[in-house]
């Protein structure tokens, strides 16, 4: 299964490596936030803002992953792959692996860029912080592929995405602290697992405890991967 996953991973990675424009453009959005939004938070804001930005990248970077699957389902590519003995789990995990590797590379570049602005982080913190971002990417990426397989049509998938990503992002406190708002909004954000991941990411870069967020992220990974694998296993996908 490891071999299968590796093969699926390399197969989807090759076109990206050959044509890395998409990866470069993927950096534009976080760079804009870094340059045009970050300074609004003042000199001390970087330690607070950059971790949130990384979580936001994980969210936006992998939630759209499912789009790449739809043309392959519509033509016979998925069918051709599903008829080989390749493990069904590998078909999913190999793809998610590609998205997560790209996400981690992009996140690392953003962390380095942020350091030019005044963000401070030790190597260990970066490692742990990117690890958490990767976990989140696995969870969201898996779910994205599964949802794409279920809805099958691009325009439906697009509206499902915008209906879920925006509330999840607003209630996670990536842009502004949730504690700034009224009580009910704060408590609502506590129900959002992503809010705990954001808190954990901030703790990591400010020498705090990240346990709750790691638990939340691991739970998301479990849920996302299980959902994804189940959907990939189902026939007629």
């Amino acid at each position, binding site marked *: 299964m490891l071999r*299968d996953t590796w*093969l699926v991973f*390399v*197969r989807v990675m*090759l*076109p990206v490596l050959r044509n890395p424009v998409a990866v470069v453009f993927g950096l534009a959005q976080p760079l804009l936030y870094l340059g045009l939004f970050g300074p609004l938070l003042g000199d001390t804001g970087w330690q607070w803002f950059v971790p949130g930005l990384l979580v936001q990248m994980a969210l936006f970077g992998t939630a759209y992953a499912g789009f790449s699957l739809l*043309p*392959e389902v*519509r*033509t*016979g*590519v998925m*069918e*051709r*792959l*599903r*008829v*080989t*003995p*390749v493990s069904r789990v590998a078909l999913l995990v190999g793809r998610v692996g590609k998205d997560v590797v790209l996400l981690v590379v992009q996140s690392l570049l953003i962390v380095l860029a942020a350091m030019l602005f005044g963000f401070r982080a030790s190597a260990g913190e970066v490692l742990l912080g990117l690890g958490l971002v990767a976990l989140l990417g696995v969870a969201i990426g898996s779910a994205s592929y599964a949802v794409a397989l279920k809805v099958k049509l691009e325009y439906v998938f697009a509206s499902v995405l915008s209906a879920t990503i925006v509330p999840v992002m607003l209630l996670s406190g990536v842009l502004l602290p949730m504690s700034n708002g009224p009580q009910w909004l704060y408590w609502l954000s506590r129900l959002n697992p992503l809010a705990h991941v954001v808190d954990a990411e901030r703790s990591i870069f400010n020498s705090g405890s990240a346990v709750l967020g790691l638990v939340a992220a691991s739970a998301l990974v479990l849920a996302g991967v299980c959902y994804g694998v189940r959907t990939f296993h189902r*026939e*007629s996908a």
Partner: protein
Amino acid sequence: MIKARGLARRFATKAGPVDAVRGVDIDVAEGELVGFLGPNGAGKSTTLRMLTTLLRPTAGEAVIAGHDLLSDPAGVRRNIGYVGQRTGAGQDQRVRDELEFQARFYGLGKHDARRRAADLLDRFDLAGLEERGVITLSGGQQRRLDIAMGMLHDPRLLFLDEPSTALDPQSRRHLWEHIKQLRAGGTTVFLTTHYLDEADFLSDRLLVIDHGSIVGEGSPDELKNRVSGDLVVLGTPQASLVSEKFENAVVEGEQVSFRVPNGDRTLPGLLRDLGDLGVELHSVQVHRPTLDDVFLTMTGRSLREEARAA
């Protein structure tokens, strides 16, 4: 090689259930080349997708290449090859990569995968295209790539869903020769087609499916013989005189058409006899039975009427 019993598939759609395949029994012996004929929407692809583990049957069971379809789909997959009706190569991939990865998905090592890919590129006239992106290939080139991808691992049992669509006559001939070679090498082949000439040239045996049920079975010759003979169309001013000589003759103006067995061989004698009767002829045509004719005799409906109704 294939033994299916009561295989059925019902799709739930918003407009109500669709019974795509209604309980078919299929038996294919090792080394046989079986053609699966039927009009659009008859259930050919759905049957193939069930036999290849891609689609769960709603009823029935099957043993494919010695493995139970429902309890051991992985075993089935290891022993079969499948070329789907829709194109199977990723649009953002390169030709060589798709072939090599496909071989490796079937467990071949890097070296063997490369060798097999090169071999099939050669055999399907794709040499020189290996560095090209799939998206730049012509329709027929893509189709040949699809077919090559289904054969990389030398499966004992090969399913082909309309392999010759989009191929020019020469490539089609090539493909036919290739399929014949595979059969000669002991591979069992199960293929769908709309073309009687293809089914005729390739198949040891034909299965005809319509509305999800098998409506006929036999060798191409048996099936054609059921379409009692070739259609002869004569242009003559004495059409009604000629029509009296033949059973079921149809007169249309100065044209009379009727069926005779082995038209190509009976025609010379037949024309002599008509000449002796003093019949004057402007034109002579002989039509071999077509899929349409076979279909007509089997279902009482013409393929073309089907197409119009759909």
